[in-house]
């Protein structure tokens, strides 16, 4: 709590400095040198004219309306300003707490999560046990704590079904789930829905009936991916999934593949891949291993030459594995989205905005790198999560 108040107290000062800086920068480059419309005290009501105005609301709690024209609006300086761009291409520099509408280009000053205040609230955050989930759980925990909430840490709680059961029964309030997993495992469908948005929409609508709210999904896709050790990749001439057909026909003994039990029976797993691509691995060449053992087995190449992996796993980079592209787009999408109990979400609807901002920032590259930071470079998930939140401007001023 005290750290938040301290940060908020610092905010006006910070914003003022920034506004001055931006005003100077824009002023020297833009058509107008200084503010054409300027508030003086607190709680000004400023309205632009039909021209390209530069409106500076100083002192905080201003109501600024850009009206027509391409306006530049500098709200800044603390308080909760209400900015409306009006028509035209407007730019604004605002605090995260400001209410901004119809402005094309908004630059936020200060940490992005400063816009959220969950002080007094208490959340229990769960996660699955593998690296990526530990990082996502930590990001969630630290973001909520930054916003002043008290967090009961259940990060690393258990497997998929354990987290789901805990969420449904109210033992935890939220955890990150993948759209494809929600659809096939929790909602018991067998066929995935093509397209990230359609899949998310379908799972969100159906799961609403179970009292679970799916927040906005992130762009990274932790789907299945066949991989091979890079040094051997060329020798097998399998550069895309459809090349397996030739390998199986000409050198069946080399077409060995490690999968987990689950993958061997699901429609969006091996049976589906074989049907979609029109090849079939010799049944003796399919080795069923526990997921964690597969990466090493592919790297060794003694047990199997190929294997199924998860696309964002850090071990792909760490062991130097090569992912074989799914050239006929078979695998469904597994985008991450925070699952929140609807009861909790209704009490704190602002969770949606906060985790939309975070999820949007979770790209394939960033997630893979964070996973490798833990799996390969030996960092702790807590540390990786903290670096992400600070480095992406959620808990610190973005440089």
């Amino acid at each position, binding site marked *: 709590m005290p750290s938040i108040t301290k940060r908020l107290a610092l905010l006006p000062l910070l914003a003022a400095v920034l506004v001055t800086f931006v005003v100077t920068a824009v002023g020297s480059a833009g058509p107008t040198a200084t503010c054409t419309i300027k508030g003086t005290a607190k709680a000004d009501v400023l309205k632009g004219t039909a021209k390209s105005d530069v409106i500076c609301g100083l002192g905080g709690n201003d109501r600024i309306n850009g009206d027509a024209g391409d306006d530049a609006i500098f709200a800044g300086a603390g308080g909760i300003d209400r900015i409306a761009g009006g028509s035209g291409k407007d730019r604004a520099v605002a605090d995260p707490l400001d209410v901004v509408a119809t402005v094309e280009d908004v630059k936020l000053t200060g940490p992005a999560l400063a816009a959220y205040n969950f002080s007094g609230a208490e959340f229990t955050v769960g996660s699955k046990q593998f690296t990526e989930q530990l990082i996502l759980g930590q990001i969630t925990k630290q973001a909520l704590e930054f916003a002043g909430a008290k967090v009961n840490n259940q990060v690393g709680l258990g497997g998929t079904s354990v987290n*789901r059961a805990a969420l449904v029964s109210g033992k935890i309030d939220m955890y990150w789930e993948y759209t494809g997993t929600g659809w096939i495992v929790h909602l018991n469908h067998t066929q995935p829905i093509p397209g990230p948005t359609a899949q998310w929409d379908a799972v969100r609508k159906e799961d609403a009936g179970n009292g679970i709210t799916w927040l906005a999904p992130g762009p990274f896709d932790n789907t299945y991916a066949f991989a091979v050790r890079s040094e051997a990749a060329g020798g097998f001439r399998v550069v895309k999934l459809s090349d397996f057909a030739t390998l199986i026909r000409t050198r069946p003994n080399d077409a060995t593949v490690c999968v987990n039990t*689950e993958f061997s029976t699901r429609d969006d797993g091996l049976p589906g891949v074989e049907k979609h691509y029109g090849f079939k691995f010799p049944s003796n060449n399919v080795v069923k291993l526990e997921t964690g053992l597969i990466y090493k087995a592919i790297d*060794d190449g003694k047990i199997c030459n190929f294997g199924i992996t998860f696309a964002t796993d850090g071990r792909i980079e760490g062991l130097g594995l090569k992912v074989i592209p799914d050239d006929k787009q078979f695998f469904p999408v597994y985008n991450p989205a925070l699952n929140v109990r609807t009861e909790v979400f209704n009490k704190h609807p602002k969770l949606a905005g906060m985790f939309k901002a975070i999820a949007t920032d979770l790209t394939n590259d960033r997630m893979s790198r964070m996973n490798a930071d833990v799996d390969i470079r030996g960092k702790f998930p807590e540390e990786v999560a903290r670096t992400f939140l600070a480095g992406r401007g959620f808990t610190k001023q973005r440089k």
Partner: protein
Amino acid sequence: MSEQAQDVAPVPGGLGSRPGLPTLLNYLATPLFLTAVCVWLYLYVQSQELDSIEVRTLNQEFLTEKLREHITLAVVATVAVIAIAVPLGTLLTRQALRRLSPVVIGIANIGQAIPSVGLVFFFPVVMAQVGFRPVLYALVIHTALGVLRNTMVGLGQVDRHLIEAGRGMGMTKLGVLFRIELPLAVPIILAGVRTALILNVATATLGTFINAGTLGDLITNGHDLNRDPVLITGGVLTAVLALGIDWFAGIAERVLRPRGL
């Protein structure tokens, strides 16, 4: 002997625990119960609408294969354990080698102290071996101690007077061992074997993680994909198998036990 024999008392539901009941019912209670459980399982699975994921595992071909893999593993592992532990236990109770017994027991203790999951994962990770054999090794290492210890305890509790009487009658040491000591130790040795058998049936499920199949395939699959009929079938069949095999072992114990004991 300071060591305690493992599970000398008959397992509940096993044989010989209810002398008051008619013998026939005593024999048939377990199979009747297990049959009832299987019928219930069959009716339960039949009543479910199975989706394509469940159908891939809940079919006769798959189930027969998994049962076969499971039984083979458990039985071969137990036979191997008997072949290793009973002669070893006998040797270690002979006068000349008795000093070594704490060392061997210590090593065997380590085998049992390692979690079975660790043992199952050891061979694939260290020796890049998967399938039947590494699981077999893991099971043997894990369950050999019980049989070894029961063999030693069983031989140790034989009344010294009987051995002396045998020697006095002019029997050789070997004759005393095979005609007096081992027969009298059979109940305790077999109690250890039954425990090993049940442990092996249970632990064989971990074979699923390293390409040895077994009913563990159904358990992990049903759990990972949240398909209850698959999970329940795997779990119930494993339990039925363990109890069924224990029942057989009970009969074997009764047949092999020396008369008059």
